[in-house]
């Protein structure tokens, strides 16, 4: 049996109420008032498509063997690198095998997430691969006071596909492709260029998704009534309902498009909606999934008894509940780099990143892998050639020790107003890990006044530096204090 063996969604912590956008920008383009309801998820300033994909992947891989991955497929239209395997960075953050694995990026269409899923499933069906992680993530920029700004949210989803412990069996797929350009983003451009909404809505989503689903049903002989959940994206909520009506789907079986709670997360959206569907699924439920973008992919799954045995590290329900109201349009605009605010001369420093040092230290930096001395058993970070324990100081007798999944507590911290940061103060401190070891880390997803010595923290892979001159993005791990829940 081939299918989904694990799943995990990731919705960033900040939510921006659409009313906040309207209060700030409706003077400029009142039409945005047409979609005033709900809120959208906004990534923190130190997140991007890769870091969110890593968060979703760790969520998904809870209790799963990252060492057994044959490949990581990454789908996004907002990849930080045009030429450097983005999936490879995610794989390194997961400390997945470097040898014998095949990672790949799937891009250039919002249906790249479902396409990557089909590619992974068919590779496993062929018997040549047995475990592939598909992570889809998008952090898209929209110009101020546009419908795009109203619709687009940030988020990621990850699905683990395999042939053991399958929780939802893959039961077929169908794809159709048209060069239907509802919007596009030229190489090197920051923003989408979109055609008239009415056309996108009626001729795009409204026709192509029903056509693809009908073709799938015809091909497989299934009936739409067989499905307990039908999952397809469409940020026009009216059209989303209209599609169901056209296909004869009982409204209770249509998976919510998440418009009200997080917005449309692009490439990751069908998969993110699917993780929400899987959380409520029962054995024998059949789920139909469609991805839209220059055509449409359709996939079907049947939930197995194994579903009861899997829980992501953090459920979508919990992710959606753990929210902080951003309540500050200017902060949102700065996080999205839509406005220019001065970082000061101190913030000008921009040394390039040593790629040789990064190669030597890739496990340490991307995988947060430290050392454990095989002589005295002391876990330690950063990795240096000699054991840190004064009574040991053994040279070079280490095994890899992953800190990314270890809980820690705050030993000391500060909130620094002098550090150049787009979200001052810069909060950082020293973390003590359960099981030994310490690390001196930036903190994120917290407000200074919530942070206390002794507070538990978890680790989160984040963007550490962005070199706009050379186009390089650097990553490392940060501590997230457990301030909520």
């Amino acid at each position: 049996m081939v299918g989904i063996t694990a799943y995990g969604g990731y919705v960033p912590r900040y939510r921006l109420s659409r009313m906040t956008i309207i209060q700030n920008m409706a003077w400029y383009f009142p039409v945005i008032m047409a979609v005033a309801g709900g809120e959208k998820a906004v990534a923190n300033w130190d997140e991007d498509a890769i870091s969110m994909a890593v968060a979703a992947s760790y969520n998904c891989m809870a209790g799963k063997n990252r060492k057994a991955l044959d490949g990581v497929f990454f789908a996004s239209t907002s990849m930080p690198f045009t030429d450097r395997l983005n999936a490879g960075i995610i794989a390194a953050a997961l400390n997945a095998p470097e040898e014998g694995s095949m990672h790949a990026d799937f891009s250039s269409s919002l249906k790249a997430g479902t396409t990557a899923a089909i590619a992974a499933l068919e590779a496993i069906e062929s018997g040549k691969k047995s475990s592939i992680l598909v992570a889809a993530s998008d952090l898209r920029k929209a110009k101020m006071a546009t419908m795009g700004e109203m619709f687009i949210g940030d988020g990621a989803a990850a699905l683990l596909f395999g042939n053991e412990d399958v929780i939802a069996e893959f039961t077929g797929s169908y794809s159709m492709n048209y060069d239907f350009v509802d919007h596009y983003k030229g190489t090197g451009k920051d923003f989408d260029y979109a055609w008239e909404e009415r056309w996108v809505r009626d001729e795009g989503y409204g026709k192509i998704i029903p056509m693809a689903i009908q073709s799938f049903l015809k091909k497989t002989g299934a009936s739409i009534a067989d499905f307990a959940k039908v999952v397809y994206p469409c940020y026009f909520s009216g059209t989303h309902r209209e599609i169901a009506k056209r296909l004869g789907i009982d409204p209770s079986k249509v998976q919510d498009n998440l418009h009200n709670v997080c917005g449309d997360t692009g490439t990751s959206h069908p998969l993110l909606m699917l993780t929400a569907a899987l959380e409520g699924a029962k054995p024998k439920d059949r789920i139909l999934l469609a991805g839209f973008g220059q055509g449409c992919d359709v996939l079907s799954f049947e939930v197995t008894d194994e579903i009861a045995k899997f829980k992501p590290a953090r459920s979508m329900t919990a992710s959606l509940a753990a929210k902080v109201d951003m309540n500050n349009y200017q902060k949102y605009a700065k996080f999205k780099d839509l406005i220019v605010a001065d970082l000061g001369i101190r913030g000008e420093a921009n040394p390039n990143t040593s790629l040789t040092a990064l190669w030597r230290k890739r496990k340490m930096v991307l995988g947060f892998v430290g050392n454990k001395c095989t002589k005295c058993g002391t876990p330690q970070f950063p990795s240096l050639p000699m054991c840190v324990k004064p009574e040991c100081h053994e040279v070079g007798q280490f095994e890899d020790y992953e800190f990314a999944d270890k809980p820690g507590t705050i030993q000391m911290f500060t909130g620094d107003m002098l550090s150049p940061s787009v979200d001052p103060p810069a909060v950082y401190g020293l973390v003590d890990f359960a099981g030994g070891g310490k690390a001196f880390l930036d903190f994120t997803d917290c407000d200074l006044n919530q942070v206390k010595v002794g507070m538990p923290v978890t680790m989160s892979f984040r963007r550490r530096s962005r070199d706009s001159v050379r186009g390089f993005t650097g990553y490392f791990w940060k501590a997230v204090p457990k301030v909520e829940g």
Partner: protein
Amino acid sequence: MASGIKDKVAILGMGCTRFGERWMDGPEELMVEAFQECIKDAGIEKNQIQAAWMGTCFDEIMVGKSAMSASMALRLPNISVTRVENFCASGTEAFRGAVYAVASGAVDIALAIGVEKLKDIGYGGLPEFSSAIGTTNSLWFPNLTAPGGFAMLATGYAAKYGVDIMDVKRAMAHISVKSHANGAKNPKAHLRKPVTEEQVMNSPMIAFPLGLFDCCGVSDGSACAIVTTPEIAKSLGKKDIVSVKALQLALSNGGEIAYQWDGAHFITTTKASKAAYEEAGIKNPREDISMMEVHDCFSVTELVTMEDLHISERGKAPKDIMDGFYDLDGKVPCQPDGGLKCFGHPIGASGLRMLYEMYNQLLGRAGDRQLKDPKFGLTHNLGGFPMMNVCSIAIVGKYN
């Protein structure tokens, strides 16, 4: 068996510029100003200097690499000049080079000069150092600054001793009030206005819980010393001789950041001060140290250092501070010249500036700040960050 540095080397002369925002003076002008005072005090000719050490920290933005700038500015007679850098201990490192050269017998007379020109960067605070932490560290280090790095100590200290962070902040405020009072009496100090405890407590937050008045002045300046043997000093007609009693240096080896550390003290200072007392033959520092100039880059550094120097008991520094133990009229006056807080902190010059105050106090030249019959003066530098740092300790006293 090594016998230590005690009484092997005497200070022949010292000089120090006014510290401050010396907009119209470059490092060369500052060095010449300090040197002229120093050589006059020493009573020798320039060509009697046989070797020199120069301490600077931020060479990249100031004088460039090597000791060329000192050799050229002072027009030294083509002798050996060595640039040393060890964070905030750079000035004391220059002094150590000169002292060890004399003690070894390799030279009779040596010069140590420290200088830093910080106000050429266009912004407040110390120069940013993201490109100066090494290629590996720059892949993962947090987005820290000096005040942030030290501010963490206050949270660590409060947690370790189970005290309210605001009580620690109150003791920190007393430190700054005391240093401002002392600095106001010092014509060479950068900041010369007294402040109140409330002003300090309410100053704008720089890095929690450090406010603006918990942070030292960022200044331009230079200080220098000429050293020789006590015998040569006598032969040159010096009657009142100040000699070096101890010179110690200790560096972190990674234990604080990666192994066992309480986050409430400096391992280096604890060890270096113990070694310094042994070298100087001091049994009870709380009784025997007459005065100190310690590295109060931030008020919390001074607070914790009082315990690391084995003068206040662990956990008791806030009480001693609030009791006035370290005030100018207290048992062990700390920062009689205003400290880094008010004299200012041109990094490479700071260690030598501290020695300048101890030297002047021992010779009875400290003006309004003069202490009664000081016997031993201790100086202390702490460079880097609490979780990885360099500590230097010097003890000077009268040569018997």
